[in-house]
């Protein structure tokens, strides 16, 4: 594993939204520490368990939401914090162990090289047939040419962080379609880099916890995709 250099890079923050992830967070933060000395910002989305305490014990910066608002609002809190504190680069990743901290350098490299403002760590192989169908449908509807629309493993440049932390992005419920369309409208270049993803360390997905949650996601994303399909289409290259 290549440890990400500490001094010669712009300042990097890692944002991890977490809801009831006390069991997963310890090992995830330990792996993160081994990969980078970047500031780990855990946004506790009003968990019922010891998520915040586990994160603090592991040396992470902990932001505690006063109510549960969902993954995107928690993520945006971390992005706002990072922007406010002058970070040049922000990586968002799940707190459930699906994303490998050793691959952070894979997704920040294109930003450091000036190739893109947003890099999505894509892993199409993890998707079920149903999810791939949903992605294809949403790509068709929105005009976005991104293979992995729902990956939460992303890197943002400072410019992109400003857009993601903006008032315009506050009403989104998910870190995917709406935000990517906003990036396109702001003419920020979004690219993907292939990464591997592991199954969750423990428990089940918080975002797609039921079929009702999936239906809500599809309905919400369909309306967003259709209404925000803009004229600023820009090709996304892999």
């Amino acid at each position, binding site marked *: 594993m290549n440890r990400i250099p500490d001094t010669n890079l712009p300042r990097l923050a890692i944002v991890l939204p977490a809801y009831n992830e006390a069991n997963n967070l310890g090992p995830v933060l330990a792996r993160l520490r081994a990969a980078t000395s970047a*500031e780990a910002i855990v*946004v506790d989305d009003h968990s019922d368990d010891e998520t915040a305490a586990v994160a*603090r014990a592991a*040396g992470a*910066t*902990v*932001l*505690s*939401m*006063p*109510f549960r*608002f969902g993954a995107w*609002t928690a993520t*945006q*809190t971390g992005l*706002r*914090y990072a922007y*406010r*504190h002058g970070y040049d680069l922000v990586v968002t990743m799940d707190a459930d162990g699906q994303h490998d901290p050793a691959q952070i350098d894979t997704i920040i490299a294109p930003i450091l090289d000036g190739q893109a403002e947003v890099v999505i760590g894509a892993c199409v192989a993890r998707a079920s047939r149903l999810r791939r169908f949903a992605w294809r449908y949403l790509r068709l509807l929105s005009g976005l040419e991104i293979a992995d629309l729902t990956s939460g493993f992303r890197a943002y440049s400072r410019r992109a962080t400003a857009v993601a932390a903006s*008032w315009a992005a*506050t*009403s989104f419920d998910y870190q995917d379609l709406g935000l990517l369309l906003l990036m396109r409208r702001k003419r920020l270049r979004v690219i993907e880099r292939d990464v591997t993803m592991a199954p969750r360390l423990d428990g089940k997905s918080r975002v797609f916890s039921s079929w009702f949650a999936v239906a809500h996601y599809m309905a919400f994303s369909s309306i967003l995709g259709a209404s925000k399909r803009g004229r600023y289409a820009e090709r996304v290259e892999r």
Partner: protein
Amino acid sequence: MLLRAILAGLGIGIGLGMLYLVRRDRLHGSYAIWWVFVSLAVVAFGTWPGLIDWLGIRLGVAYPPILLVVVALLLMLVKMLTGDLDRTRQMRKLRYLAQRMAILEHEVRGERR
């Protein structure tokens, strides 16, 4: 005659109810304006049902009573839409405030590494 009295009473009741809710700070002034307007309309059309015939004929509506139904439905749709717009604005502000609070709380505690 009884129906007129009931409708007029209903309108007056709604109007007084709105004033009571404003007085108790349960309803913000600008929302109360809408509901007082509704109660005035109930009083007017309940007390003088001929008003709707008079208005319908002037607007060329073949069956005037339906005018009241259509206008009421349209106004309800407008009210529901503006209500949802307002809830969306409030939700955005609430999220923003909660985010600010989480960040400021952390900074006040001085926990930053």
